[in-house]
């Protein structure tokens, strides 16, 4: 799967699961500041990622993820 395809899936999850406006979701967008996702929201997104992509994400790997792009790259590396 190409990075761009992963981004599209991630964007859909943000829009569907968390009700975030589609236009706000860019690779550069910061999860907490720009998208206003709280810590529980991040957990929800991670659980949705795990279901969607059939992978497991460790808490350690998440520590450095602050933007949509970093999340996309992490997922891309695991698929």
């Amino acid at each position, binding site marked *: 799967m190409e990075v761009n395809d992963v981004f599209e899936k991630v964007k859909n999850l943000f829009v569907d*699961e968390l009700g975030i406006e589609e236009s706000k979701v860019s690779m550069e967008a910061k999860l907490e500041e720009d998208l206003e996702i*709280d810590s*529980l929201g991040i*957990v*929800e997104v991670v*659980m949705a990622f795990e279901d969607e992509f059939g992978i497991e994400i460790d808490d350690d790997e998440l520590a450095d993820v602050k933007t949509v792009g970093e999340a996309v790259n992490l997922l891309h590396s695991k698929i």
Partner: protein
Amino acid sequence: MKTALVTGGSRGIGSATCKALSTNHKVVIGYSNSKEEAKKLEESINSNGGNAMSVKIDISDKNSINIAFEEIEESYGIVEVLVNNAGITKDNILPRMKDSEWDDVIQTNLTGSYLITQRAIKNMMKNKWGRIIFISSVVGISGNQGQSNYAASKAGLIGLAKSVSKEMGARNITSNVIAPGYIETDMTSFLSEENKEIIIEQLSIKRIGKPEDIANVVAFLCKEESEYITGQVIAVDGGMTT
């Protein structure tokens, strides 16, 4: 109609809770060993116009929980109300207690409640609504001779419930504890008449509790209107702890 799962639902407090919830919930009777009682209760609720199914769950086993939840979700959709009622006792005074007695009681009563709550809560989060009720015990608050393992497991539920209430409040999931006093069930049937009299003497309400006394409070906490009550321990004990 929302779906409510009651663990240990076939007998005692669990059975009364299933009946009380059946007026406005789809009820899942979780049982481990009492299949016959569970089926009887299921039939009784269904023949009275309710919706009930019974499912075997060994709450101390993650695999058993997953299998049970898949069966529930297929028939009734996601579990929106979870009543953590299943529990066991293996009484002994501490100097005589075997490791296995300690481990079994902690594994079922505390770890089992953790495992099943974790399984249920993921869908509650997605659904942005949930009610979790832990049936603890007054002995989790005040301790009891011969029950250090049981009291520790029941006290543990209070810490678990309060933590869950803080984590999940933003998702409209409430988490509360009911601490029953002496309730007339199989679990307390070993008490002699004489000992019952001694217990009643210490109560404000001069009778042993009925399973329905607990079930009514569970039903109240499950209501939509109870959404502002969370992280609480409600003793339903005839005034034993005041």
